[in-house]
């Protein structure tokens, strides 16, 4: 851990984020607009059961584990209840498509919700609280009926992107692998790892560039056996935790090598300002903007996890970039330069300043993971 931020300052930031998340709650869960590279969702601003729950739940669990204060556990449980309440008869979660809400069947969003549920279940089970089962059952229904039931392609032996699309998207599959690891650990059953995770990890490694200037980069997707042009540093970072978990579970060096290589690629992409380009194409051209701000929490977290493999990375520079995005309401800006993607390079795009639960959660999870001084958040903050 290279960040040496004053713990009191960090605690103040976290309290601000906690209050902001509370302000984003509606009946049914955390709501608000979504702005994204692929699309925006600014008219539907109701609750979304998507990957925002991953960072929110794991962030609150981080605080609970650090402080032993039940106020944080209760917020993680409340978020878990949002997901359970929004589970549809098909096992899917309501409004799980993030930038395409209120549609359902979102990937990797439902898998990210499963991670949240399974982490709550694991924590409660460890405490001897029998309520853990409801969270495990909800995740199980989603994993079995949707992911393993509809997305698993038994002939190709990977998880396809959507029931109607056979393409393979590494970062989405990686999130799902993380969920299955958690489920297998909770159930003490390695069968799911062997059957679903390991073949999927092989596909992720196949999508990785092995040599040349893009060595370590992972293609955004594979469709019709051809890579979809574009390397997104953010999405590549989302592939790394599953590879690291694969290494930890199997001891196979090839997973660690793939994770290290991907982490090194991301590190090489780091800009002077600490941000990362949005996408680099195989021609060498790129679209630098919008540069994510709140979402760099995920990159910081993942590169921190991969540091022990030997990746060198200026964490401070990106940390400062993230902190510069703090806003007066306690939230964090989504990005810099949404307008600069347009032909003509507009500079006035308000989407930059929109704080989105599904981006801020990435920063929240990271920041709760680096706090060390537990007494600052041990007592009530109201």
């Amino acid at each position, binding site marked *: 851990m290279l960040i040496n931020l004053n713990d009191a300052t960090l605690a103040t930031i976290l309290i601000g984020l906690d209050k902001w998340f509370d302000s984003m709650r509606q009946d049914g869960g955390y709501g608000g607009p979504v702005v994204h590279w692929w699309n925006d969702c600014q008219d539907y601003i109701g609750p979304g059961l998507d990957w925002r729950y991953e960072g929110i739940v794991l962030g609150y669990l981080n605080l609970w584990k650090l402080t032993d204060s039940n106020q944080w556990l209760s917020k993680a449980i409340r978020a878990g209840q949002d997901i359970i309440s929004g589970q549809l*008869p*098909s096992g899917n979660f309501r*409004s799980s498509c993030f930038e395409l809400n209120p549609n359902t*069947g979102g990937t990797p969003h439902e898998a990210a919700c499963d991670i949240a549920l399974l982490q709550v279940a694991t924590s409660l089970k460890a405490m001897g609280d029998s309520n853990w089962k409801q969270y495990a059952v909800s995740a199980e229904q989603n994993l079995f009926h949707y992911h393993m039931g509809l997305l698993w392609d038994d002939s190709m032996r990977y998880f396809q992107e959507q029931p109607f699309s056979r393409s393979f998207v590494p970062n989405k599959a990686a999130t799902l692998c993380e969920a299955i690891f958690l489920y297998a650990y909770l159930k003490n059953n390695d069968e799911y790892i062997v059957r679903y995770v390991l073949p999927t990890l092989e596909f992720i490694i196949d999508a990785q560039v092995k040599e040349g200037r893009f060595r370590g980069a992972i293609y955004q997707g594979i469709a019709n056996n051809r890579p979809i042009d574009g390397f997104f540093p953010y999405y590549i970072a989302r592939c790394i935790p599953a590879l690291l978990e694969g290494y930890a579970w199997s001891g196979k060096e090839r997973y660690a090598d793939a994770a290290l290589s991907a982490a090194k690629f991301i590190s090489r992409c780091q800009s002077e300002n600490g941000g990362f380009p949005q996408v680099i194409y195989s*021609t060498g051209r790129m679209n630098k903007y919008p540069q994510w701000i709140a979402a760099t929490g995920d990159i910081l977290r993942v590169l921190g996890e991969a540091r022990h493999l030997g990746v060198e990375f200026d964490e401070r520079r990106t940390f400062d970039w993230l902190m510069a995005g703090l806003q007066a309401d306690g939230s964090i800006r989504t990005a810099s330069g949404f307008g600069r993607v347009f*032909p003509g390079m507009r500079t006035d795009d308000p989407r930059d300043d929109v704080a989105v639960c599904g981006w801020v959660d990435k920063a929240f999870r990271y920041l709760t993971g680096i706090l060390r001084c537990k007494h600052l958040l041990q007592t009530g903050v109201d």
Partner: protein
Amino acid sequence: MRHVVPLDDNEVAMSKKTWMFEDLYFQKPAVEYRLAFDVANSIINKNSRSNLAVISSSLHATEIVKRCRFDLDIVGTGSFTVEQFVDIASDWSPMRINAVKLKEMPKFTRRTYSSIIWAEPEVDSSEEVANLLRRSSLVGTSLMVVTTTRLRHFLPVWRSALRPAHNPLSPGATMRSLAKVGWRVDGWQAFHTPQSVFWAGLSRLASIANRPDWRDRCFFAMRAAYRKSNKGYRLTPVVLLSARAI
């Protein structure tokens, strides 16, 4: 786990397929419709009192159910049999949804609605429905009407077996029909503008020219030009009208 939906007779006959509700729920609507329903529902979702949706098909009804956050009465027009739909969809809706028969609406409800969505007016019944809606509304009631022009036939959903409406009324004719019975159209939003078509074309050209960076930039510009308000709507496939009871 699967919920078989006997959709309305017309749709089943056309599609020659047993549709499951989850098939419908899983479908992502055309972007034009998605945005129109998002905006239309934002009006209803501001209001926790009495809301009504008048709907021409199970496709549209599903989109309304996905978005509703307050109790909702639903009326079916054309061949859409709303009672069967509500039976199944209730398990999927976060809020209570009730089927209401069009002819019995004023008698059944004995109340007025404060927000109404109408998607999409059918030629055969539009005047009658507009009149009934006005009779069920107080002055100031908001009405959002999802309509389509002839360009709807370019939308994939209009080339599929399961269509959003039978014989929909154009935006202009809808406005005239509303005006006759005491609705004032305040404005409209049109989706998938000619400008966005232009940018989409440039995006494709950039892709052919092996410039994925410009492909994505033009795509961003396409998204930004996708809708416009209160200007010409004739060259757009989906138009959302905003009206008020006077």
